[in-house]
């Protein structure tokens, strides 16, 4: 095996914390997302074409704080003229090569730069509220936020809201610290790592 994911040594599969006598939706489900292709796509200033003229895997580049998605690809707005495209199933580099030019966009492979934890369950926001100072009440499905969790810079990708499913991304080297912080916060509700 040549490839080792960022959370390989800390993500311990099993039930943890206050999980006993609870329904599956009451506890937090936690998994590490591995082998994702992640590209940062930044539109150059001198590229005068409208961003709406471009598509990636059939998806529009979303407006601020929004996410475009299909079953294979998610495109996250992470700043003005700045997006993050993620996929676990398709070759993003090929998709990008089909749609975007290096003369018009700065395209950077960050696939190995991130540790990604996906949390699901009805108490997910309660867990994240312990370390993340954003207003979770006003955030909905397919929205994205850059914030911090216990001092670690994170990107939160709101995958679903019934029940809540949120991806928490941080720089790879912070991954173990973030994982510890998030899972420790989840102990109160109980969590299943799978």
């Amino acid at each position, binding site marked *: 095996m040549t490839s080792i994911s960022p959370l390989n040594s800390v993500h311990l599969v099993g039930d943890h914390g206050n999980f006993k006598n609870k329904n599956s939706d009451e506890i937090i489900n936690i998994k590490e997302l591995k082998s994702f292709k992640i590209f940062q796509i930044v539109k150059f200033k001198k590229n005068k074409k409208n961003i709406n003229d471009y598509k990636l895997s059939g998806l529009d580049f979303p407006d601020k704080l929004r996410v475009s998605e299909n079953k294979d690809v998610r495109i996250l707005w992470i700043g003005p003229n700045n997006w993050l495209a993620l996929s676990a199933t398709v070759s993003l580099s090929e998709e990008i090569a089909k749609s975007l030019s290096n003369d018009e966009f700065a395209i950077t492979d960050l696939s190995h730069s991130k540790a990604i934890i996906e949390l699901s369950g009805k108490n997910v926001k309660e867990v994240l*509220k312990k*370390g993340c100072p*954003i207003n979770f009440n006003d955030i909905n499905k397919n929205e994205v936020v850059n914030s911090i969790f216990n001092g670690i810079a994170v990107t939160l990708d709101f995958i679903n809201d019934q029940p809540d499913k949120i991806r928490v991304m941080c*720089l790879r*080297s*912070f991954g173990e*610290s973030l994982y*510890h912080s998030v899972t420790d916060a989840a102990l109160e509700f109980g969590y299943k790592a799978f």
Partner: protein
Amino acid sequence: MVQNYRLDKIGLVNREKKLSFKFNGKKYFGYDGDTLASALIANGVHLVGRSFKYHRPRGFFGAGVDEPYAIVQLYRNGETEPNVRATEQELFEGLEAKSVNCWPSVNFDIGAINNFLNIFLPAGFYYKTFMWPRSFWYRIYEPFIRKAAGFGVASKEHDKERYEHKYEYCDLLIAGSGPSGLASAYAAAKNGARVILAEDKPRFGGSLLTSDVSINNQSGKEWADNIITELKGMTNVTVKNRAQIFGYYDHNMLVMSERVTDHLPKSEEFTPKQRLWYIRAKQVVISSGSIERPIVFGNNDTPGVVLASAAKEYMKVYGVLVGKKPVVFTNNDSAYETAIEFKKNNINPIVLDSRKDSNSEIIKEAKSLGIDIKFSHVVVAAKGYKKVKSCDIAEISEDKQNLNQIKNIECDCICVSGFWTPTVHLASQSGGKTKFKEEIDAFVPDKSKQKEVTLGSANGVFTLEETLKTSFDKGFELSKAITNNNNSQQIPKVSEKKHSKHDKFWCVPLPKGKKYKRFLDFQNDVAVSDIELAIREGYRSIEHVKRYTTLGMATDQGKTSNLNGLQLVSNIENKVVPAVGHTTFRPPYTPISIGAIVGREIGKHSKPTRKSPMHNWHEKNNAVFVDAGVWLRPRYYKRGNEGLFEASKREAENVRKNVGVCDVTTLGKIDVKGPDAAEFLNRVYTNAWLKLPVGKARYGVMLREDGIVMDDGTTTRISENHYHMTTTTAQAANVLSHLEYYLQIVWPELDVNVVSTTEQWAGAAIAGPKSRDLLQKLFPDTDVSNEGLPFMGFVEANLFGVNARIFRISFSGELAYEVNVESDNGNFMWEKIIELGKDFDLQPYGTEALSTLRIEMGHVAGSELDGRTIPYDTGLDGLVSKKKDFIGKRSLLKKAYNEKDRQRLVGVVPLDKKTSIPEGSHLVKDPKGKLPNPKLGHISASCWSVEHNNPFSLAILKDGKNMIGSKLYAMSPLKNKTIAVEIVSSHYVDPKGERVRS
């Protein structure tokens, strides 16, 4: 055991559930729903502690947060907690508590001698004593005072409990669940607002629990219960009891302490004991109510003197009598509710009313019940030491200056009421000013500074009808502005007794010849005489009076004492109270545990840790780590009994002799892309970048605007418009910010994108004379010869199926390469290097050996580029272009930067070739020179030169190059060392730099 002071039937405690507890080692029982205070009173325990300064006996004065002195040391589940108010602590099975501030016991306290020495212990006595002899301060006075101070003892043991933090947002945050809080919460919630309602006590309802009122033909409690039930069922409402809003900060951020399991014998595993909420609210409604203030009289701190409202609460909520022969001493109507409640429970109170007469509805009721009311009468002094046994009473003149004949009446408690003080703490903390409201002799909030409104008795409104009307209206109005909904609620019909005007009387004059202590601040033992003394001694500002006397300080924050203190100062200074002003209300409103403030114990995760993809390998192979910012880097790899010196020496020697590998993942990496990338680098770095060919790397130095070196590193041209920049580990984030700043603010016309790729690539530096041989085995399909991959060259290659980048760069001064692979493959790369390196005697090396290698080569790093040096100082002046512009260029023209004898980088060797020179040592000419001994320079970095087998250091030395060959002294006052040294070239090894090009 009989509870002599427990009433039958009435109260809200659960009599089906008995709870046993211990106080001062003695076993008692109470009921579920009791506080420790109510359970102790029910058991006839009225003496709970000793006062702070005089060690006078202290009992219970209030029934909630207003309690100034029933403070105990609590024991729970193997933990102990000081500073716990018995009136706030809910009873649980097995609770144990002890009195504080007394020794050997609360009944017999040696410290009570202070009470008899009180003439020597006036306000501010500690500012005047303990002056002499001077040596006594540290040895005797301070240790003694420290031992005597405080209420209880903090545990030295590890706190096993969990504490959580939580961030929350809402439309309306409502502090307090009394009538105004419930009404505004209900109106706002029904209008669609997101509401958080916080109640400090376990029960909701505030004054409605004890008031004799009717709302929509329900009792106050029934109405409150129904409203709370409805609110709890609404998805837009969060209702929290045992939750106190204790601090109001900028931008409508408030902090709430929720006592999650303090009322239980122990917390369940993983369940927090307390949770601290940081709440940002669009609007805040402060419905924190009011606190009854006492009337000041002689010995008013005697156990058995209680607030009248507290006595009523003990009866109506807990079914407990504070005494069986009560005297109710009042200047207003509200205390009559207490008297009537006593009467209803077959206890005959005597009411002393300072007013000349009153004939309000409630007084008529009291009279009709046969209660003995004495108008124009006051309590002169309580009698009794550990419990009130009687009191001296007297008729008082209309001007309240003279007392007629004093007579003594038997009683066992004195329930006192001097009217009500709005709780303006939160409103004041919000930044809003207060104003004095003459009708109630108290301050109320004035104009709001933030988005908050104060309602009900906290705003000086003491009728239920008006409170409910304004609160329903305000809840609707505030919510409508947020939600745009228009769903208003009907204001309920209220029936309440009308009260007559209170008497502005607050202090009973001392009878002639009597010297009773008349306390204002019960927690801090501040008496009327203390304030008088402070003013006699010249203190005028109320802030100074507070600090000199301790009035209103500490955990009490003057809840029951502030107003009376201000009244006294205004009387003495012949000013009106608003002219005296009041002191600052500071958070927290009541004590908050350190655990709640700190939050969950996360040990080593108190700050994030960054780890490289090879971290686990390092751990398994005996790496000893060092913090590099928040990164953990291997400092050395321990073998056998080696220490730092032996291991790092071995590792460095092996690099010089064979080959070594070092994890350099932590070095900052920045992708620079765009049509203007070359121009951008050309402006950022001091040297030229426009003509760097693709596939080549170049060393660069960047300056701050002031000409000081900011960072250095190599940057490689990957393709026409794509560069890979490296930075030092420490400056990676700063350099990225620096680049972003210039691209966004200074040169927005440049089309360049910068992004950190530090995490994308795992890096290994392979250094040493055998490194090329090893590299060839690692990359058999790649030409890594000196021609194929020359110094500062770059190629992309294949590492057994894994894409890799090879940079021929060197920090060690040896023939060296840096190999990068994508991070998931970092460990694979590392293990391959270790495996194939065995044939070349490869050893991993850590940061300590890395330092040794670079120091003896004279390569600068953070200890030379320390934010004080310019390129000239550190031998980097050859990299400063004279032709093109770059950041910091103009600053390099400064006169001081161009002095001929300016400091320069040199090497330093001890004359004995044995003694290591401590880093930071000063270089001086004369070791015995007169202080301040002129400093010529300092040692920036030291190592054991593995090439020369003697100590070697780098130094920044005045006129350094001309000093080579000089003999100086390195002095380290910290290490108490003076070492004779010789100044040599900074390039101690391979001065011509042949190895890196070999």
